[in-house]
């Protein structure tokens, strides 16, 4: 398990762009069939299920609690550090990414991104989804058909922005990453929910053992 320090401290900006290099083919314990320079895992379908195990959630909760107590105990200067919820979110994501043990692109991307900065002065950028509603080809003006990308392409693009570090991934790899990412997020929600209930004093001990999502 990664040390507490490595999770809390953001790394130096890496010169190695994880999106363009593919060292996974050699070092990855999963068997990967190499297709050109892109790889498709042979048995990726089962990998994401480890997020559902009780022990995984247990380990995550413990590490998260330890990390959070450390993070929130520091007295940061309010002018440069982000808000507490933001710090909690950042820590929760990093502990989650660490639990992936470097096997997935999204987790590596999370671990190599910098800590949140207090950007009160910066304009908050809206998520790309706010830009244009996806209505398909129904929006026609003057009888002329607007040239739009196929729906699948558009939604793939949105998805690639939602999963960290996956903007330039091939479609199959993107779906794989998304599958694993979703399972991990679900575990994150279960664990944090159980933690919150525990800390609020109302949770029963079974609360930490894989509650289903509401």
């Amino acid at each position: 398990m990664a040390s507490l320090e490595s999770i809390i401290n953001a790394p130096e900006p890496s010169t190695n762009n994880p999106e363009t290099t593919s060292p996974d083919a050699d070092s990855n314990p999963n068997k990967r069939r190499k297709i050109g320079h892109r790889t498709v895992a042979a048995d990726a379908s089962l990998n994401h299920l480890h997020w559902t195990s009780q022990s995984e959630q247990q380990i995550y909760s413990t590490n998260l609690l330890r990390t959070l107590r450390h993070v929130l105990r520091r007295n940061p200067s309010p002018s440069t550090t982000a808000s507490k919820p933001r710090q909690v979110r950042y820590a929760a994501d990093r502990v989650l990414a660490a639990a992936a043990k470097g096997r997935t692109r999204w987790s590596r991307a999370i671990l190599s991104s910098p800590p949140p900065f207090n950007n009160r002065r910066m304009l908050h950028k809206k998520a790309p989804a706010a830009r244009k509603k996806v209505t398909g080809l129904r929006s026609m003006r003057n009888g002329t058909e607007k040239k739009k990308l196929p729906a699948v392409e558009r939604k793939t693009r949105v998805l690639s922005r939602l999963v960290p570090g996956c903007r330039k991934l091939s479609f199959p790899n993107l779906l794989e990453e998304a599958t694993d990412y979703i399972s991990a997020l679900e575990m994150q929600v279960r664990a944090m929910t159980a933690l919150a209930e525990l800390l609020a004093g109302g949770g029963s001990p079974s609360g930490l053992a894989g509650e289903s999502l509401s």
Partner: protein
Amino acid sequence: MSSRRSRSRQSGVSTEITDAQITDLVSKLQQLIPELRARRSDKVSAAKVLQETCNYIKNLHREVDDLSDRLSELLANTDSNSAQAAIIRSLLM
């Protein structure tokens, strides 16, 4: 991204991704989405699966944000004793 799939078809040799592969991955994704799990995979289009996937991830992100909010409050207010008790309890189970 728009030419990704056509690019793979043109090169033919090493970067070919079959439709069957894609269908397979899409159906696996569909099984993960609570909204779509009950429906038969031949009745749900790939676009729909992708749409619901995006929505689901956004929802999960929002939940994590809300939980981060809650946890930051709880950890600030709670005294060290109950936090330690929580850790001990979690380790024992």
